[in-house]
């Protein structure tokens, strides 16, 4: 965070605040007037996100033109709070890391917007869907542009809200609404960590602004460790890592473009971004980095194992995302922040591609999601087939596609950090598993003979999707294929130089394995995975694995996602529900009882009291007389006692 500059007024960087504001305004318009706009909602939303994309490109170009040493700009947009000497501002931080995130969010976001035109065609809440998409993009842009932990947190929370709204978009289905709630609540657990991290930071530094926090000189190691671990809790929640990954696979309940948006461009990348952004802090505490890497490695392994036996085409991709995010955590944990961001970008391209392709397939198959009821779709959907092929090979790590480069860099970084050799081997195993389950996914959908009903009276006739859906696929497949060129080698790639002043650099500690051996190992493991899947699912004509009962022990365990959901149900949800039930009784009997009791007591007193109100003037007069006599008697007796006449 050295050389922080304020951009000249009127320059494109000074206008960067428009990037999140434009889609936010569009979202507001669509929410207010969506019903009247009808199908006009889509062009408005697309125009808004495209404008943001254009601005992002302009910002990127402006940064690129600037001196490499002076590419960090802070824009003060407005003052939020001014209390005494404390001033909280809406400030934007524009530096190389932000710039690439902006391009990813707006670029992939715009393609997903376009795709949704075809995918959501005819939905009754068409305009609202686009409003939410816009809002989602705007929130993520606030997140990546924020100059302080607080501004980042605003975007962070908005992203959580938008994911809730979009996952539960078809809230008429009870389980979908449940999935939305699960995502929201699970994220909230992570948010507690984030907030605590902010509290600790503020107590230690007296500010949440990155330009004050990130130099981080003179902070006690204990404080930095605490901040690092607490931020990790937040990142684990948002980026779906163990133990908070459970919401992401369920997030499939949302429409497919939403899945693509959550998995590729927004939301889950936030955790990795956060750790990369805080890299100067993490650099001081390598032990915390070790924790990050182990969380990533375990998540990658568990999710990859689960992905190998799932039957739902979107669930496979969801667990794949969890697993790939684990990869990114390995990278940032090992201190290779550039590699982490690199994988974030390439994964953003090929995972968006794969999800949109899955949506295209579902569209053609009338919302069928079971891969065992597909097969042989290559002829019916040639564009989806070719683009999926690229996405599959990219994620499987086949050179020269993008996934190969980014995974290679992460594995190399893990091997070169002392004490992380086990993590490296887990990563290697996951690379093989990834190749296996993605091949399985691809083969079962596109190759072989059709296993769906293709001749009967209710036969399906899959067909290619409309242009609004395949154009994004085509663009993304180009990105998925070529994104690797961003950083062809860990030391000298373009991205490496670009991010040099944004994130901490990586310094290899040990070289236990030669670089060419590393590449050979990774490639052969990937090839092994692809081969195994081919042998299993192509050579032998695939039979449905559907009947879970036939699975041997391990597969059943993985098919049931290692019973983690059930464990959480038992350990957290059930006790929580019991506690709530108990408190409900106290509420109903105790608190409501007291209130109702007071009301009932008043009513009872009133029933007695109203008898006094006879309505006869003379009885009132009599009461007055009695009262007067009593008072008089009191005075007389009192006077008598006082003067000694009585008693």
């Amino acid at each position: 965070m050295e050389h922080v500059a304020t951009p000249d007024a009127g320059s494109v960087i000074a206008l960067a605040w428009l990037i999140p504001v434009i889609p936010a305004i569009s979202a507001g318009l669509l929410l207010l007037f969506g019903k009247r706009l009808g199908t006009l909602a889509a062009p408005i939303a697309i125009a808004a996100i495209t404008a943001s994309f254009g601005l992002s490109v302009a910002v990127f170009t402006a940064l690129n033109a600037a001196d490499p040493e002076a590419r960090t700009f802070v824009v003060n947009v407005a003052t939020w709070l001014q209390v005494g000497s404390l001033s909280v501002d809406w400030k934007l931080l524009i530096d190389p890391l932000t710039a690439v995130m902006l391009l990813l969010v707006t670029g992939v976001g715009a393609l997903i917007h376009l795709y949704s035109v075809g995918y959501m065609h005819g939905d009754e809440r068409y305009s609202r869907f686009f409003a939410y998409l816009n809002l989602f993009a705007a929130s993520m842009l606030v997140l990546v542009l924020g100059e302080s932990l607080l501004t980042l947190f605003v975007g962070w929370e908005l992203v959580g809200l938008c994911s809730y709204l979009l996952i539960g978009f078809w809230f008429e289905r009870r389980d979908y609404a449940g999935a939305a709630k699960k995502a929201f609540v699970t994220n909230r657990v992570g948010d507690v960590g984030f907030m605590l991290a902010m509290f600790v930071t503020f107590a230690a530094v007296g500010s949440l602004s990155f330009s004050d926090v990130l130099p981080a000189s003179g902070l006690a190691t204990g404080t930095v460790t605490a901040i690092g671990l607490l931020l990790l809790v937040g990142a684990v929640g948002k980026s779906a890592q163990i133990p908070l990954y459970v919401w992401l696979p369920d997030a499939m309940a949302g429409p497919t473009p939403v899945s693509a948006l959550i998995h590729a461009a927004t939301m889950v990348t936030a955790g990795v971004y956060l750790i990369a952004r805080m890299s100067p802090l993490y650099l001081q505490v390598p032990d915390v980095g070790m924790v990050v890497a182990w969380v990533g490695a375990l998540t990658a392994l568990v999710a990859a194992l689960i992905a190998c036996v799932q039957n739902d085409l979107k669930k496979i991709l969801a667990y794949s995302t969890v697993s790939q995010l684990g990869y990114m955590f390995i990278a940032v944990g090992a201190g290779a922040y550039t590699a982490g961001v690199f994988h974030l970008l390439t994964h953003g391209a090929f995972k968006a591609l794969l999800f949109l392709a899955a949506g295209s397939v579902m569209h053609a198959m009338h919302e069928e999601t079971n891969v065992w009821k597909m097969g042989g779709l290559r002829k019916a959907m040639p564009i989806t087939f070719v683009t999926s092929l690229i996405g599959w090979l990219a994620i499987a790590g086949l050179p020269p596609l993008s996934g190969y480069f980014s995974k290679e860099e992460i594995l190399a970084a893990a091997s070169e950090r002392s004490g992380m050799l086990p993590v490296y081997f887990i990563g290697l195993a996951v690379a093989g598993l990834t190749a296996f389950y993605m091949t399985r996914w691809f083969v079962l959908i596109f190759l072989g003979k059709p296993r769906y009903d293709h001749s009967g009276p209710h036969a399906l006739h899959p067909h290619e999707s409309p242009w609004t859906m395949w154009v994004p696929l085509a663009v993304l497949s180009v990105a998925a294929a070529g994104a690797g060129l961003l950083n062809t080698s860990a030391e000298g790639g373009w991205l490496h130089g670009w991010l040099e002043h944004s994130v901490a650099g990586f310094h290899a500690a040990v070289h236990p394995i030669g670089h060419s051996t590393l590449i050979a190992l990774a490639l052969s493991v990937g090839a092994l995975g692809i081969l195994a899947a081919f042998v299993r699912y192509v050579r032998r004509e695939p039979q449905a694995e559907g009947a879970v009962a036939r699975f041997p022990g391990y597969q059943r365990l993985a098919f049931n996602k290692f019973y983690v959901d059930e464990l959480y149900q038992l350990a957290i949800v059930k006790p929580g529900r019991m506690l709530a039930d108990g408190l409900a009784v106290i509420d109903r009997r105790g608190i409501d009882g007291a209130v109702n009791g007071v009301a009932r007591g008043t009513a009872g007193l009133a029933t007695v009291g109203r008898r006094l109100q006879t309505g006869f003037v003379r009885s009132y007069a009599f009461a007055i007389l009695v009262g007067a006599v009593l008072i008089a008697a009191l005075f007389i007796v009192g006077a008598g006692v006082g003067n000694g006449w009585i008693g």
Partner: protein
Amino acid sequence: MTVPVGYYLILAAALFTIGLVGVLVRRNMIVMFMCIELMLNSVNLTLVAFSRIHGNLNGQIMSFFVMVVAAAEVTVGLALIINLFRLRSSVDADDVRSLRS
């Protein structure tokens, strides 16, 4: 020769009691009203009598105040009674109880 003050007080008490009993037992509002006047005037009599005993004018001044207030009270009260009569064609106090549910 002067009448002892005790006689005045006895007369005033008798008048007050007649008025009180009248208010309590009669239902005709006009009669009740006259009884109230009777009570007020019995009090006036008491005030004047005590004024005489103490040899100052406080009580007499007070009785003037009572008369003024009583005059005002009569105008308001009679107006009420007349309006009630127009409304219900009756001056029976027990008929006026519509506030009771």
